């Protein structure tokens, strides 16, 4: 596998003039780690992920993926190395059937049909969805859609995976499956989520976004245990840690009732 690397330096971006969503944002990532990206609704997590794959070229600053700057002439190459899993699987599953959808990217990259076939099978196997192969996309359940959408990205064999709210709309069983898959996949991953427990379970490092910047970058355990920090940025402790910390501090929470 090639060296996966993301380098973001001083990136600013806004959809409308005068309203910047990202302000001089910088961070770096490489290797095969799982990185959690947290922050309030509307803080720009999805925007940041979309900038990394070059969907909005009008930013200032530099973004490099695998050493290549995100510019028009590199886009095709960059996009073959970096996969983006949309929050809403239906936006991604535009083909009629599952195997067509998973084969969409390899076919577009002009791979021979035998190789396409092999990749489709491997991607479906990795997400445990081989049995869904001949199904129609609209007949899938929410959880199945998400897993198939991930397979549709894995079939490109990307070095980097970006995931926008991967656990949204998943039932507990499918959520556990997703966590297993996230552990198994060898790619460098950035997982944007409000599911703090998912981040705690899967990510070794976490980026906390606020006010258009990365305000904290560190070990997940450290950031997600810092109740005050999270609260200051409109977030809450992972449910699993809530009990522990309250018991430790001997305080009863009555406000949940």
């Amino acid at each position, binding site marked *: 596998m090639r060296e996966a690397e993301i380098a973001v330096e001083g990136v600013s971006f806004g959809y409308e003039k005068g309203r910047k969503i990202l302000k001089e944002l910088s961070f770096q990532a490489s290797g095969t780690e799982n990185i959690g990206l947290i922050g309030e609704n509307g803080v720009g997590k999805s925007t940041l992920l979309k900038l990394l794959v070059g*969907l909005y070229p009008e930013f200032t600053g530099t973004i490099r993926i695998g050493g290549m700057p995100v510019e028009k002439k590199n886009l*095709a190459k960059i996009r073959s190395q970096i996969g983006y899993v949309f929050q809403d699987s239906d936006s991604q599953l*535009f083909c009629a059937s599952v195997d067509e959808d998973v084969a969409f990217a390899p076919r577009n990259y002009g791979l021979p049909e035998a190789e396409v076939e092999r990749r489709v099978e491997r991607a479906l196997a990795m997400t445990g969805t081989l049995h869904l192969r001949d199904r129609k996309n609209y007949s899938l359940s929410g959880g199945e859609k998400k897993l198939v959408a991930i397979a549709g990205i894995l079939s490109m064999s990307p070095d980097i995976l970006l995931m926008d709210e991967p656990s949204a709309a998943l039932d507990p069983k499918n959520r556990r499956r997703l966590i297993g898959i996230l552990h198994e996949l060898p790619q460098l991953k950035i997982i944007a989520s409000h599911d703090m427990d998912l981040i705690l379970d899967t990510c070794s490092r976490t980026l906390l976004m606020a006010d258009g910047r990365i305000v904290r970058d560190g070990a997940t355990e450290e950031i997600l245990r810092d109740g005050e920090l999270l609260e200051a940025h409109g977030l809450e402790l992972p449910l699993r840690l809530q009990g522990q910390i309250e018991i430790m501090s001997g305080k009863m929470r009555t406000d949940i009732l």
Partner: protein
Amino acid sequence: MNRAEGAAREISRLDMLARRDQRVNRIHPLVKFLLTVGYIAAVVSFPKYDVFGLLGMMVYPIATFLLGELSVRDAFRRLRVVLPLVCVAGLFNPLLDQNRVRLGDVWISAGVLSMLTLMGKGVFSLLASYLLIATTTAEALCGALSMLRLPEAVITQFLLTFRYITVLLEEVGRMTQAYALRAPRQKGVHRKVWGPFAGQLLLRSMDRANEVYESMLLRGFSGKRFYQRQRTPLCGRDLAYGAFWLALFALFRFFPVLLLVGGIFL
């Protein structure tokens, strides 16, 4: 169940029917498509008083329902949509066509005959197109259409619309339910929210179209290749099936088969 939910359910029902592994389902989609068009053309071309000639055309739907093991009741439910307009056009025939035809010792109105054929045409053509879609999936049909050299843009359009119809129907279904729960005495959407109700959905749909486009781009889409066509080659059995039915259509269209057969017995 509101209209949108009903429509979504109907789509998945038809799709399940089309996916069954029946003999008729396995016939090449192009053959079935052309047969259906040919059948409907033959049916509607019957002269307007030729009740018995038209009646003979029932062999195709009867045989296909039996061979495809389909429920006739489901098909007839669809007649509700079609029959009203046909009835309006046909019901006046008995009043306006005052010609009389002698039937033994009684005189009957020629208008009644033309009304009967018109309704017969309506029923038969509807059954034929139902039989097509209940034994052929939308994608297979698109493969057939692309073999007929339909422009790629139209086929892509059809498939994408088909794909997102279920997503949006579910959304409309949920919105309608949510509305109805809070406005129990209203039959539909109130005038004050006409714009916002459908407009919200429109904006969301546009956003969705945008995301779909983004996800296409991210997976290497460059505007050239889109859907992979299910182009299966025609085999001898498909051609034989088509030829058999075409010959039968011609026979029943040009010869008064029912009268000839009846004559044997009498």
